[in-house]
């Protein structure tokens, strides 16, 4: 994407995000029933989005001749999952996963 279209993209995303933040503060009371009806979907969205975002780039890497399954990345993901269940901060799973990946590449190449 060109620089100009990226500015345009970010502006649209920023505007949409702002309007969501403003929604109920501005339309006080009028959207309450809508929110109550949407609540199950809102509760289910975070795990659905996060899984769809992170699983493919962990399992595959993009090569010139298509997708390739990456064992090192999958194992690094497992390390991050274990660390995420012990620590609340995002720092440790990320650091642990990256360290594993670096170590694996260094040992096996």
């Amino acid at each position: 994407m060109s620089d100009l279209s990226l500015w345009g993209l970010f502006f649209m995303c920023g505007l949409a995000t702002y309007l969501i933040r403003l929604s109920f503060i501005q339309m006080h009371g009028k959207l309450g029933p809508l929110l109550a009806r949407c609540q199950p979907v809102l509760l289910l969205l975070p795990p659905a989005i996060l899984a769809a975002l992170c699983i493919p780039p962990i399992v595959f890497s993009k090569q010139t001749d298509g997708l390739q399954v990456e064992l090192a990345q999958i194992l690094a993901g497992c390390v991050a999952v274990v660390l995420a269940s012990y620590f609340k901060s995002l720092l440790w799973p990320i650091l642990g996963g990256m360290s594993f990946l670096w170590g694996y590449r260094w040992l096996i190449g």
Partner: protein
Amino acid sequence: MQIRDYRSQFWQGVRDLMPLVSGVLPFGLIVGANGVALDMSPELIMGMTVMFFAGSAQLAAMQLIQENAAFVVIVLTTIVINLRFAIYSATFAPLFYPLKKRYRLSFAYILSDQAYGLCIAPDQQQRSDAERISYYLGTALALWVSWVLSVLLGIAVGASIPPEWMLGFTIPLAFLAMLMSTITNRLLLIVAVVSGLAAIFLQGLPYNLGFVLAVVFGVVAGLILPRIAGRSFNSVMGRPHE
């Protein structure tokens, strides 16, 4: 109520936010450094940061840009990720709605996960409206400043990180760690598994539509499964009946 009391509540908010900076800083570093790795100019990264002011949506947009996703898919993803702000907006509506429009409009912009988390604490709920607004401003502005500074630092550091470090892999790892914290019951685990598997099998679809469909499959599975099991959604989620 005296100005001094407003001020003390404001600074109380700033102080309460400080421990959360340890969580914001690495996240901001990753956003800034990945922006540099994606060949974005510092102005563009900072423009994005100020316009979004939402770290997970920024990271998601960056990853989708890397995957050459369509413009519409990226905007849609940002909206869906940020839908949680609607819940926060509803929470603060009774407090902000009576204010002048210019305050309402600017207070909405600085709304964040962290400010919401601190302001819904029970001891805050018992205070006067003016005190609660001052406290909100303290937490929200402190978070805004620390977020922007963290991304700036990431941009400064990012330029010197060699490509062999595979910095881009920090994005899916960050999402994976966030995913783990959102899975608090079995239904949410199933939703994540359905969505993740669907995303793998639908990888080949154009414009990154596979991502959008995977999210839809995950959510639909989460809505349908309790019915098949003959239980109500609220009981499966461990929520009280309304």
